[in-house]
């Protein structure tokens, strides 16, 4: 179980202070609310707009809040001065404005405003390409006028990248600089300022803000974008906002979705009005296979090559499930295509992989134009993008005409019965399949090749992808909800409540971690843990680490466990990569090995040229730098909560033991014991047979191990493991290791033996005294 959705709150207090500043020096036309006429020191402000009747800012000032129409807003948009800053508008602005007015949403601006003004909650449906994410928030600004009330408009996004790039785009459209009137706030980064009136942010960030400001008082309108993706944070936010709107009648809420299933949102929000804007899409013809495929990857490759050799111009998008599968497919397509080209059966083909962990520079390559024909007038060249489902919704690639859909994606699953949260290759939903097909119709009519039968589409695929809340461990969510003041978790009104056992497990885990008492109330430790945007086990480990004299090291370790894999193991150089990893290996396990890597990375010699150093040692410089950043963020939270940072002297022989003990304090529920003398381990309490992941550096003789992750594949693996002693388990987590609560078997016997040994030792030392 790794760290989840950790949205680092960028120092709340300071940003609140910033808002106060707005009111104090109120730039432009802001701050008028506080009746400057009564303040003699501000008299000069008061009449400034009146002196300059041509100032378009004046026009906005005369707007009646929640009483404007499209015509008024457009007149203000036309300039000549920027209505929000009073500055002269750039040439670029006018060019973009023209394009903006061509977007489908623009046609319905008046209709939108009317509904927005009439109701507190509005459901807005706009297909991809309708312009909803960039335009609707701006429509709102001209009517809600948040800057005149020292409020803001928030627009949430499920993904960090989207929040950043959309904010950048909208800042350009409004002719302001990013971080001023328009900003964004994502984990690790807060790019907003005192004049910010429109804030794009991840849904997780807004949720964390709610933890400190239950009514979200700094916002006058909240827009939940991409709600159809049903991320965990969006679902929790919807449940929360449903209650907030009752308490705050002045707060407006817009739910934006890209799919027509929006009636579900409507129903959930007490039949809120719905406005739908058609997207700009072309028809897509769908083809099915006549029989189920034996091997979907092979079938996909065959289909891609067939399209390339027999179809007309247009790029190909192939959906596969993960990095390894994608890289492998790219290699094979390249080989086969070269043969076709050599034989003169097809034009040039450029293949690009696309997945989340790919470095941004390489991700960017997918936007390169397709190669031209080999000879003028020859067979058309094309590009083929082999992608995970990130190309399904989050990225728009123009020029795609052919989509190949084998029908699978990697999806997170969680089952409370075996406590495993894992990414598994699973069949997609019908909705997903339609979304994928739609990708072929962005530029012109396209074709979608589904590598399954029509019967299978109808019978085997579920209607909608399960929302994340049904597929996640809810321990950290429960902690957040508790902090949000939601006490009756059983009746919290979620759109799709998870199975009761999921909540049961989460409560139990939090109770063992001492974050909740037996009544289900937040303990002191629980309150503290909720301050950290971490999985509760990690947060608890960090908080108690000073008791083990190693909070510095545990802080680094927590950061390392919160970022993507730091070790790089390229397919063509595995041996060398493993040799390099061995340089850092610690015989007691992977956690300590990671720590060794981090310490080496921070050494002066490595910092001289971190990129080169990481490259030489087969480490991901991005992941390590990110870990550095996370460490800093977490350190601030620790300092704010007066948690002491300390280390055991390195020469002390307990240096590593202390770290391992602290590890147990957080991860005592993720322990496995070796089964007999064999290779297999058995997890404590759940009694699942598991193997150590081949990547481990741990020597085999470790009888007991803590693990960070249970990976479900064809085999059960535990990944990132470190050896521990059973005495520590009994000592550090006596509640969980209450021997009477164990089923009969080897684990119980072993614990019993340990207990006897401990008691005997105690008696001995007592006897000696």
């Amino acid at each position, binding site marked *: 179980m790794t760290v989840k959705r950790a949205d680092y709150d960028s120092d709340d207090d300071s940003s609140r202070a910033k808002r106060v500043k707005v009111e104090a020096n109120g730039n432009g036309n802001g701050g008028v609310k506080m009746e400057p006429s009564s303040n003699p020191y501000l008299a000069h402000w008061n009449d400034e707009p009146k002196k300059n009747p041509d100032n378009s800012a004046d026009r906005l000032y005369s707007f009646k809040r929640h009483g404007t129409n499209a015509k008024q807003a457009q007149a203000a948009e036309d300039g000549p001065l920027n209505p929000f800053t009073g500055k002269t508008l750039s040439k670029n602005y006018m060019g973009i404005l023209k394009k903006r007015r061509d977007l489908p949403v623009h046609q319905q601006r008046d209709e939108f405003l009317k509904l927005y003004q009439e109701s507190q909650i509005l459901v807005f449906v706009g297909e991809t390409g309708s312009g909803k994410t960039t335009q609707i928030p701006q429509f709102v600004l001209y009517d809600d006028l948040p800057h005149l009330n020292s409020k803001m408009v928030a627009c949430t996004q499920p993904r960090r990248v989207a929040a950043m790039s959309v904010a950048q785009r909208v800042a350009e459209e409004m002719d302001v600089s990013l971080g001023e009137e328009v900003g964004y706030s994502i984990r690790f980064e807060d790019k907003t300022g005192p004049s910010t009136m429109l804030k794009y942010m991840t849904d997780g960030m807004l949720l964390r803000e709610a933890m400190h400001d239950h009514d979200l008082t700094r916002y006058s309108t909240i827009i939940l974008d991409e709600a159809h993706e049903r991320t965990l944070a969006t679902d929790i936010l919807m449940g929360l906002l449903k209650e907030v709107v009752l308490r705050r009648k002045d707060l407006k809420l817009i739910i934006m979705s890209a799919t027509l299933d929006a009636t579900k949102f409507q129903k959930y929000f007490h039949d809120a009005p719905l406005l739908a804007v058609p997207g700009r899409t072309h028809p897509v013809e769908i083809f099915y296979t006549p029989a189920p495929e034996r091997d979907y990857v092979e079938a996909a490759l065959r289909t891609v090559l067939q399209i390339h050799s027999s179809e007309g111009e247009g790029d190909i998008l192939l959906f596969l499930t993960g990095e390894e599968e994608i890289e492998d497919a790219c290699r094979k397509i390249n080989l086969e295509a070269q043969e076709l080209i050599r034989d003169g059966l097809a034009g040039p083909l450029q293949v690009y992989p696309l997945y989340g962990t790919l470095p941004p520079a390489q991700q960017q390559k997918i936007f390169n134009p397709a190669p031209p024909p080999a000879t003028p007038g020859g067979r058309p060249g094309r590009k083929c993008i082999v992608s995970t489902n990130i190309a399904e919704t989050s990225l728009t690639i123009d020029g795609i005409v052919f989509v190949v859909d084998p029908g699978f994606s990697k999806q997170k699953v969680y089952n409370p019965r075996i406590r495993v949260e894992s990414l598994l290759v699973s069949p997609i939903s019908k909705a997903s399949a339609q979304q994928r097909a739609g990708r072929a119709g962005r530029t012109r009519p396209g074709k979608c090749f589904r590598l399954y039968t029509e019967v299978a589409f109808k019978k085997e695929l579920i209607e909608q992808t399960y929302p994340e809340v049904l597929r996640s461990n809810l321990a950290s969510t429960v902690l957040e909800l508790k902090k949000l003041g939601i006490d009756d978790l059983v009746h919290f009104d979620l759109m799709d409540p998870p199975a009761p056992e999921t909540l049961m497990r989460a*409560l139990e885990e939090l109770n063992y971690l001492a974050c909740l008492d037996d009544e289900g109330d937040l303990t002191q430790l629980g309150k503290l843990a909720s301050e950290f945007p971490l999985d509760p086990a990690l947060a608890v480990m960090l908080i108690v680490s000073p008791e083990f004299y190693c909070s510095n090291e545990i802080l680094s370790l927590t950061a390392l466990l919160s970022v993507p894999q730091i070790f790089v193991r390229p397919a063509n150089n595995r041996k060398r990569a493993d040799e390099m990893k061995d340089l850092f290996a610690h015989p007691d396990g992977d956690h300590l090995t990671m720590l060794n890597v981090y310490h080496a990375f921070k050494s002066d010699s490595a910092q001289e040229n971190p990129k080169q150093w990481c490259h030489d040692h087969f480490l991901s410089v991005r992941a390590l730098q990110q870990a550095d950043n996370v460490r800093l963020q977490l350190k601030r939270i620790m300092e704010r909560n007066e948690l002491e940072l300390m280390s055991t002297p390195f020469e002390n022989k307990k240096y590593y033991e202390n770290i391992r003990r602290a590890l147990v304090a957080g991860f005592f529920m993720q322990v496995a014991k070796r089964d007999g003398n064999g290779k297999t381990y058995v997890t404590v309490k759940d009694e699942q047979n598991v193997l150590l992941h081949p990547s481990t550096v741990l020597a085999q003789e470790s009888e007991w191990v803590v693990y960070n992750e249970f990976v479900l594949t064809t085999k059960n693996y535990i990944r990132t493991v470190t050896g521990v002693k059973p005495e520590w388990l009994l000592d550090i987590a006596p509640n969980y290791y209450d021997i009477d609560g164990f089923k009969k078997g080897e684990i119980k016997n072993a614990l019993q033996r340990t207990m006897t040994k401990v008691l005997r030792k105690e008696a001995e030392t007592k006897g000696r005294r």
Partner: protein
Amino acid sequence: MAQSDEEEDYMTMTIEEPANRETNMQRIARKRREAQERAYIKPKAEREAEEEAAREASLLTPLPSTNKGFKMMAKMGFKQGDALGKSENARTEPIKVNVKEDKSGIGLESERKRKIREQFEKAERDLKRSKAEDLDYREAQRQQMREKKMESDLYRAQKTTERLDEKDLGGKDPSEIRLKSINLLWRGRERYRREKIRERKDDQQLRNSILARQPTYEDDDEDKDYQTALGREELVTTIDDDLEEEDQEFEEFEALPIIERLEKVLMFLREKHHYCYWCGHQYPNAEMEGCPGLTDDEHD
């Protein structure tokens, strides 16, 4: 070592029964056996199967209400069997976890997986049954024998009925008749035959389409026969549709206890065809003179 304060009392000390003590030889043998068991490294396949079976078993076992989380939820007003939230039809079971083991496309469900699940469910059923049935073993055996005999009697009686009925069909092959218009008493036989035929056909179709993988997509220009030959065009027959159709009457009949079904068939044979199954003879008239009675016992 923690020593007890008192001296050991030799007078009241019980001496262990020598019979229970294992001899040196026995101990060595036991130790060797135990060591062997420990040292035995299970073959990969066995290990994986065990791993998977354990996982599937855990996935089918709900958390007990002794769970601490359950107690906390109970304080919030939760009762066993409830769902969370305020919406209707909220789920009460976690989402199933399916581990994909190969690259098979959608629609080709892995057989092995299904089998493991079925085995587990069967084992559980058997366990329940063996607990519930506290019958004397011999009684159970006898019961089983009786049922077996009844099954074979039913099979043979149905076969006879079909043979005798055939004359009434006027030479028509039963496979050309709509299932529902076939005599309920032996409809199951015809159903079974049709299912077999269909299975074979499905199998062939699948094989054909695998052979005909290149090119995969339908080409309108291809002529119809060619498509049929490649298995792209389904050969649709009425029989297939017939099988799909719901047949409530038949289902009800099949659900009857075997003894009742047998009785019905035997009575039909007597009344319609003046045939006594136990005599194995068709009598010329309804009187059925010479037949000792209705039951097996009466025909010795």
